[in-house]
């Protein structure tokens, strides 16, 4: 087996692992509200979300192969890898992609352990940026784009991240306020059932949109690796096995359920009632679809979190836990540089040890780190059984009921 084939196989495996973390990291974006209001049993919710992610991923008939172009310069605009990185069976390019994926996974796992909903796309982009800086220098990063559309690190990552949570919070707050205003005085037997159905429907839309959007990123990355190593030559389509593996991987991750993150979103940030759940998911669905139509690349996580926060602002008397919101905000700001740092360190290490050996070593390190975090998580397990337990801020005693 040649060295580049070894690296290619590792890239494919690690990319699918990233897709898996992407799945469980984002389950809460769609389902946290339905789970915490009791509209769906926790296990049913993650199963529904997983099924819709699977369907959504398979619906991606036309996959853009230019996913990395948003932040780094390793492909041309047709999606073909740049020829200067194709020596040694594409090893230089494969190593950058591998290091980027390792950075993305490491950050996704750490934030999951801490129960923080951070953006999986930012983690992936951060890892790629770090690996590109290490491997190609500062010029290897597409900082500002070409000036013809929203592009580059600024246009595809920074600006959408600043705008989308604010817009989502605003819309969800308005929606929540309207719903409570309109249904004031209506007997609960009418509101409860209706809003549960509304919630499930809108959450399903968010899950489906997530499947079509996020699974595509991994499909694009794997196909890029196949193009670079000469195992695929068509820049207009994706091999079917890649599509199937990515779809199954993201769905399996979703089905596992990122319970820690679901708990933070559904119980920690705001205590949610059914009408708020409906308002949050409607706002998320409308904003995700509208911005993807307008070419604004945004993170499902930022929108969902902003929406849930907004429902806390819009319901008179609802309490928003600003300490939790503050921790999330810190995680969002840190995501890109932290994943970039891991990506860069990974590239240097792999480069030091040399192609095939380096790739094997960093993959083993990643597996060790993942196992360590998994083991750590089992000290304080969060699962379907306790996801809806009362939330206590650890560092502050709960005031006694008056």
């Amino acid at each position, binding site marked *: 087996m040649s060295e580049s084939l070894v690296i290619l196989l590792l890239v494919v495996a690690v990319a699918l692992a990233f897709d898996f973390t992407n799945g469980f990291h984002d389950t809460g974006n769609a389902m946290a509200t339905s789970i915490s209001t009791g509209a769906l049993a926790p296990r049913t919710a993650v199963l529904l979300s997983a099924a819709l992610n699977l369907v*959504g991923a398979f*619906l*991606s*008939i*036309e996959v853009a192969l230019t996913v990395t172009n948003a932040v780094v310069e390793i492909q041309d605009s047709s999606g073909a890898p740049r020829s200067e990185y194709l020596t040694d069976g594409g090893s230089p390019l494969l190593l950058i992609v591998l290091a980027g994926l390792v950075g993305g996974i490491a950050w996704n796992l750490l934030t999951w352990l801490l129960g923080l909903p951070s953006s999986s796309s930012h983690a992936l982009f951060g890892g790629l940026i770090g690996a590109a800086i290490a491997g190609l220098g500062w010029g290897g990063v597409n900082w*500002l*784009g070409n*000036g*013809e*559309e*929203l*592009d*580059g690190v*600024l*246009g595809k990552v920074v*600006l*959408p991240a600043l*705008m*989308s949570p604010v*817009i*989502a919070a*605003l*819309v*969800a707050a*308005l*929606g929540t306020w*309207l*719903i409570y205003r*309109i*249904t004031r*005085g*209506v*007997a609960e*037997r*009418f*509101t409860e059932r*209706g*809003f549960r159905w*509304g919630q499930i*429907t809108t959450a399903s*839309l968010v899950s*489906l949109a997530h499947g*079509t959007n996020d699974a595509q990123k991994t499909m694009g990355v794997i196909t890029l690796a196949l193009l670079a190593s000469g195992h695929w030559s068509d820049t207009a389509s994706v091999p079917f096995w890649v599509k199937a593996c990515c779809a199954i991987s993201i769905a399996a991750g979703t089905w596992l359920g990122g319970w820690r993150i679901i708990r933070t979103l559904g119980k920690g940030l705001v205590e949610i009632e059914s*009408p708020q759940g*409906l*308002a949050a998911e*409607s*706002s*998320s*669905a*409308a*904003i995700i*679809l*509208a*911005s*993807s*139509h*307008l*070419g*604004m690349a945004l993170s499902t996580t930022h929108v969902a979190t902003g929406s849930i926060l907004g429902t806390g602002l819009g319901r008179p008397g609802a309490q928003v836990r600003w300490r939790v919101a503050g921790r999330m905000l810190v995680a969002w700001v840190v995501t890109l540089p932290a994943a970039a740092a891991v990506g860069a360190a990974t590239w240097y290490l792999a480069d030091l040890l040399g192609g095939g050996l380096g790739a094997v070593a960093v993959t083993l390190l990643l597996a060790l780190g993942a196992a360590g975090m998994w083991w750590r998580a089992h000290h304080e397990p969060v699962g379907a059984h306790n996801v809806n337990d009362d939330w206590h801020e650890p560092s502050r005693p709960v005031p006694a009921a008056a």
Partner: protein
Amino acid sequence: MENFGFAFEAGWQVVLVGVLLGAGLPAVFAAGIRSLAYAGGGATTSGADGGPAAAKPLGTVLAGACFLVVILGIVLGLTFILASGFGKELDFGSGIPTLVDKS
């Protein structure tokens, strides 16, 4: 720094769609539920005299209209997701959403 201009341009449109569909549709849905309760005589927990209020068919019609609007909104969202998977997009230029090839 063209990015700021593009972001602003896309941003206000997202706000507009968000307010119309993301907040407007749930409000219509809520109005539908209120109509349904009105139809069943339960808009308030009890009638003016303290007993249950009488059923009103107008409420059923209003509720139906509200839910129809909401369903149309959901179908629009679903079409959008499906279309983007097939390399198409919705064009709103003519006032009525139509499917066109992605540019």
